[in-house]
């Protein structure tokens, strides 16, 4: 169970985003708020998701309808759609990892011109092909049911963890690696007064733990009645951040050992620039670099695939709750994933737009989870659903304050993001809906999706599929 959950939480964001964000936000200074938000954002939301999924035995739409009433089913629909829209472009990311793994094995990397392979591949028909293969693998695993997902996690997660540890040992034993450690861990206490660092740390926790996505809720549906939720939620949060920390040490030690002169340029190159242009060059410069490069992209592929599988399962589960047979639901999800993934595979502008829109959407999803618990009654929720049968550790009243804190954090983060966008782009440019990073494109897409969710709320709340029996009664 833990491996499946960890597979959901650990994704490419741990390996390519955390090192970059930590490095560009003060290193050791960033790690302080990052550690704080693990307990004040990720863990409370994971507790909520586990409790809702286990109690309702339905996907996000059914869980919201069961917990706070049918007229709020649209909130669950938002959560489900947000994760599904991410699935549409996340299959493209998984395809990139697959392509670079084959390139590393075949010895194509890093190539004479570092960015040539990426520029030829990104946005081409090959990106569509690798996206389709990645989605096909995820759909095939989900078609095997929860046992299929469990089997895949049993192979992929231990392999991923071993690979990350092997790569980390290689990185910290490189000459000059201590410069990377110094960069990552040396704190600047004056930086703790910088709100930007705190907000980046909150954003990192929100995006890379999978808290508030509805994915933990979906897997919790299949828990046994006596299965623990509290310790599992903590393990998931700490396990996810443990992998992030390993990845941070691995990437920064490699960067500072091989190219200390270009460290700033490398960590500032964005997720894809760092991973698909710089990483091959860095690995090519170390002994047995081709082997370690292949291991790096294999780890990245497994991290992406296990997360993609959970997104496919979530979308499938929502349809099953509506009364669609599981086989047919998986076919629909696969067809939609393929059709909707093609634009992101062919256009980096479209990809960036979707990444931006639904990344912000996740903060709204987290807010909806907290609001649902507030509406239900935080103390009642804690006593009835969090401290339920099988919970190994009783959660105290601090949870009540934590739910309020999550609500405040989500609102502060959304307001901050809004003000940042307006001040950086100006009113006129930020309201243009055809600019990938604009406020206008986000508001337009949010309005359409929210409008549809609310308009079809009654239909959404009609749950005709069977309630999933608890794992111990299956």
């Amino acid at each position, binding site marked *: 169970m833990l491996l499946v959950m960890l597979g959901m939480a650990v994704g490419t964001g741990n390996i390519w985003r955390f090192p970059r964000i930590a490095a560009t936000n003060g290193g050791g200074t960033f790690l302080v708020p990052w550690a704080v938000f693990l307990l004040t954002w990720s863990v409370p939301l994971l507790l909520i998701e586990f409790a809702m999924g286990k109690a309702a035995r339905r996907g996000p739409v059914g869980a919201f309808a069961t917990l706070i009433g049918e007229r709020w089913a649209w909130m669950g629909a938002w959560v489900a759609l947000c994760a599904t829209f991410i699935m549409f472009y996340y299959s493209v990311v998984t395809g990139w990892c697959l392509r670079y793994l084959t390139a590393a094995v075949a010895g194509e990397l890093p190539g004479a011109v570092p960015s040539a392979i990426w520029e030829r591949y990104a946005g081409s028909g090959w990106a569509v092909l690798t996206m389709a293969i990645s989605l096909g693998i995820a759909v095939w695993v989900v078609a095997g049911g929860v046992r299929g997902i*469990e089997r895949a996690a049993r192979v992929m997660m231990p392999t991923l963890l071993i690979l990350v540890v092997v790569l980390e040992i290689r990185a910290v034993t490189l000459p000059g690696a201590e410069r990377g450690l110094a960069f990552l861990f*040396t*704190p600047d206490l004056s930086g703790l007064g910088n709100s930007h660092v705190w907000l980046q740390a909150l954003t990192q926790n929100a995006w890379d733990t999978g808290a508030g996505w509805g994915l933990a809720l979906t897997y919790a549906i299949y828990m046994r009645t006596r299965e623990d939720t509290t310790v599992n939620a903590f393990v998931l949060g*700490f396990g996810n951040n443990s992998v992030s920390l390993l990845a941070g040490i691995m990437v920064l030690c490699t960067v500072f050992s091989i190219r200390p002169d270009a460290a700033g340029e490398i960590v500032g190159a964005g997720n894809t620039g760092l991973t698909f242009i710089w990483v091959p060059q860095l690995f090519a410069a170390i002994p047995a670099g081709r082997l370690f490069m292949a291991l790096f992209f294999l780890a990245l592929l497994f991290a992406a695939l296990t997360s993609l599988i959970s997104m496919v399962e979530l979308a499938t589960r929502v349809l099953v709750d509506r009364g669609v047979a599981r086989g047919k639901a998986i076919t629909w999800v696969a067809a939609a994933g393929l059709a909707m993934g093609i634009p992101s595979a062919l256009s980096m502008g479209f990809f960036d737009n979707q990444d931006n829109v639904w990344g912000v959407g996740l903060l709204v999803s987290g807010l909806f989870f907290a609001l649902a618990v507030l509406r239900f009654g935080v103390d009642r929720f804690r006593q009835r659903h969090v401290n339920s049968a099988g919970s190994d550790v009783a959660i105290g009243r601090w949870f009540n304050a934590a739910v309020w804190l999550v609500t405040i954090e989500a609102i502060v983060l959304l307001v901050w993001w809004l003000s940042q966008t307006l001040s950086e782009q100006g009113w006129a440019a930020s309201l243009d809906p055809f600019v990938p990073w604009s406020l206008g494109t986000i508001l337009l897409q949010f309005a359409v999706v929210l409008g549809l969710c609310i308009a079809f709320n009654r239909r959404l709340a009609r749950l005709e599929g069977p309630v999933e029996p608890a794992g111990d009664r299956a």
Partner: protein
Amino acid sequence: MTAAGWITMALVCSYVWGGLALLVSIAMRKERFKDGSPVRPWEP
């Protein structure tokens, strides 16, 4: 690396990895006591 860097590294790593090790040990011990047999999630 400065002393402050080493201290931060020790604190952050022991918090994240130490916390994980402690939680996993709690989870495994509690699961073992529940039915006295190895746990196979989702299976009857």
